[in-house]
């Protein structure tokens, strides 16, 4: 059965999206990313080094737009204007590619999004013709406003970036999923496979993570675990779980039990 993920006009086979940061080396990054089965891979945009080490590699040579859909992010941006500038640079870098991950950070310690600036940036980027996948808090009203602004995916956090704490507010994620028509993708805070499964069981359309794989003891094995976890959670959601009950209910028939 085909169960592809549609984001705007694009269609993807994998519902797992992965970042490319924090890997010990490039080979481990590409091995883990391939093992994850992800179609969409995030990257950051940064100044080149003008000093020493001019021969440093370029990640686009390793993780190629021919193999993956590159999702440039605006990580490190604190204002709408900075994030719009970053997206314009990314679009030119990637030959006119307009799919971006918007994140506008409010505080360097918590790395939580600045939602008023995020909403402003989303509106500006949509006006500029970008397809915006937007990282946000799990705030219901902002999720609705971001969809209304024309974002192609709404991406509430599970927990703060890099914290690995898993889904802290499953009820709010579920409420957002029920309301929002565009894909809802849990982005940030996933720690292990069961967190990704829970996100999918709640009805999320996908999961975006980075540190959960890059920071695992064995990233390649964890990448496989995440691939399977997202698929398992999606299948469970589509299957429809059994109702919970306060009472026990025997699985074996009562009749015919031998009694002394």
């Amino acid at each position, binding site marked *: 059965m085909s169960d592809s993920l549609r984001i705007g006009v694009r269609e993807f086979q994998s519902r797992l999206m992965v970042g490319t940061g924090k890997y010990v080396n490039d080979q481990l990054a590409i091995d883990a990313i391939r093992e994850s089965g992800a179609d969409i891979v995030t990257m950051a945009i*940064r100044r080149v080094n003008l000093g020493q080490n001019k021969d440093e590699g*370029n990640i686009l040579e390793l993780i190629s737009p021919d193999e993956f859909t590159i999702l440039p992010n605006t990580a490190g941006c604190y204002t709408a204007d900075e994030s719009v500038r970053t997206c314009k640079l990314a679009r030119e870098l990637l030959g006119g590619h307009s799919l971006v991950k918007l994140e506008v950070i409010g505080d360097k310690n918590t790395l939580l999004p600045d939602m008023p600036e995020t909403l402003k940036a989303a509106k500006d980027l949509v006006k500029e013709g970008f397809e915006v996948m937007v990282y946000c808090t799990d705030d219901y009203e902002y999720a609705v406003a971001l969809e209304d602004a024309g974002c192609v995916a709404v991406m509430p956090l599970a927990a703060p970036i890099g914290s690995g704490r898993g889904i802290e507010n499953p009820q709010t994620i579920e409420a957002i999923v029920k309301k929002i028509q565009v894909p809802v993708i849990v982005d940030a805070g996933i720690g292990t496979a069961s967190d990704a499964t829970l996100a999918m069981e709640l009805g999320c359309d996908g999961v975006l993570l980075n540190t959960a794989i890059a920071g695992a003891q064995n990233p390649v094995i964890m990448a496989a675990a995440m691939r399977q976890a997202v698929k398992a959670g999606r299948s469970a959601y589509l299957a429809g779980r059994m109702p919970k009950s306060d009472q026990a209910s025997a699985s074996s028939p009562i009749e015919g039990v031998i009694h002394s």
Partner: protein
Amino acid sequence: MKNIQVSINAESKEIPLNLNIPQLLDFLKLKDELLVVELNEQVVMRADWATTTVGEGDKLEIVKAIGGG
């Protein structure tokens, strides 16, 4: 030859007058693939690199993709 002062990635740099973008990247010993250049907060399209000349006091950003989440 006359030199000019510009800002590149927030660093003050002295560069020769009348460099276009490919010549600037060559001067900085940067390979020009997989980079993008912003001049005074406007992206310079690659098609315009050869005809875009850097002037006194210009602010440039030269960026690339790196690993990120």
